[in-house]
């Protein structure tokens, strides 16, 4: 067995805005699948600095890996996970 690093970049496969969130998450929020250059297609949330608005993301766009809390809620704030952010996004940012 050998450890390798994967997924520093990705391509957005699909995305939607969910208006209902499970416990520990705040709606609305993006849900996405991204394709990693190494092969797998994985589920991912989108980094919190990306504004949750229609038209900000476009399937096929280049994404980059970030690590941040799963959600900005008391239940999940201390837990880190991978997420992806667009390399360039169309939104206004915050």
């Amino acid at each position, binding site marked *: 067995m050998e450890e390798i690093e994967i997924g520093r970049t990705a391509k957005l496969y699909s*995305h939607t805005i969910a208006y209902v969130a*499970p416990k520990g998450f705040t709606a609305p929020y993006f*849900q996405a699948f991204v394709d990693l250059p190494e092969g797998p297609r994985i589920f991912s949330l989108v980094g919190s600095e990306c504004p949750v608005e229609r038209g900000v993301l476009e399937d096929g766009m280049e994404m980059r890996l970030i690590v941040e809390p799963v959600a900005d809620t008391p239940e999940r704030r201390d837990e880190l996970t991978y997420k992806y952010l667009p390399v360039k996004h169309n939104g206004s940012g915050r």
Partner: protein
Amino acid sequence: MREVAIIGVGAHPTGRFLEKPLKELAYPAIWNALDDAGVSAADVNVAYFGNSLAGLLTGQEGIRGQVVLQHAGITGIPIINVENACASAMTALRGAWLEIASGAADVALAVGAEKMNVGDSARTIGALSADSELDLSDMGMQFTATYAIHPKINIKSRMQEYGWTAADLAKPAVKNSYNGSLNPLAQHRRPLTIEEIVQSRLIADPLTLLMCSSISDGAAAAVLCAADLAQRFTSRMPIRIASCVLQSGVYRLPGDERPDSATTSASEAYKNAGIGPDDLDAIELHDAMAPAELMLYERLGLCAPGEGPRLIDEHVTTLGGRIPVNPSGGLCSRGHPVGATGLLQICELVWQMRGEAGPRQIEPRPKVTMAQNQGGLLLGQDSAAYGVTILKC
């Protein structure tokens, strides 16, 4: 393998029954099925009990079937508890079918029962998220949203590729809400219009509230026996199980060109029954979200990719059409008490094949029918379980 017949079915109405525990949902289904079959509790050699959420919602994690069945007089026989997410009931049916087909039993009972309304819908939704791989739900995956973006269906890309509109996505719900309005067992009995479905609250773009099946309580049961013994119990027409298939989802990387598991499970069911899609007279399928019905038309071989909305526009799959789909109202209207759904589908098809479906009766009476049930979500690109049953009379 011996030939197996369904000789009795029964169901509890589907809906919100806050005051009723799981047992009380299951009993009418079980007793009606036994009565319908002319079978006494003592005649039953083996029982399969399907349920998905009782462990998390009521705490009754173990021996769910025994707890319910002992008070229905079904005791002292093998009772097998089955959990397979939204495909639990079809998995129970398959177990009962195999017991008889193999010669191990002559009479078997299959039950599916689910109690989802516990007065706290957040808790119910939390329990449902355990029907997907926890690595996904822990990470914030919302089950409904996956219908919009999950590679197995990806409605958004289908809208782009085929030019489907929001109105197209609503069409199965319009058709099924009409069917459900004719079904006294259905949870939602008001016929819906395209406009109100499209304009209802967004759940996960482009899915709106009225495109989604809702939280539901219900139960269904079927009594099976060796086909050559059917006349011993009942003079009613036995309904033969021509095939009963169960497949788990397959892990796929992008670019994997193999057909998906909804397609392969249906193909296997067709092959085992010696028929093709053109031979079917009616279908009950797993429309957990309305647009899934459009996708399943393709996967079951009813139409070419992208042509799903046309089948509804041209009334092919409406009650009076060539191949009615979801005459019961389907998951969105009849209701989706997850661990009961597969057997609710079977009940509907048996009633239709016997000519007992009242105002929603398909004419002429269907002779060859299919129930398609699926459940759970894996990290790969498939649901976790696919169950398909073909019935003949």
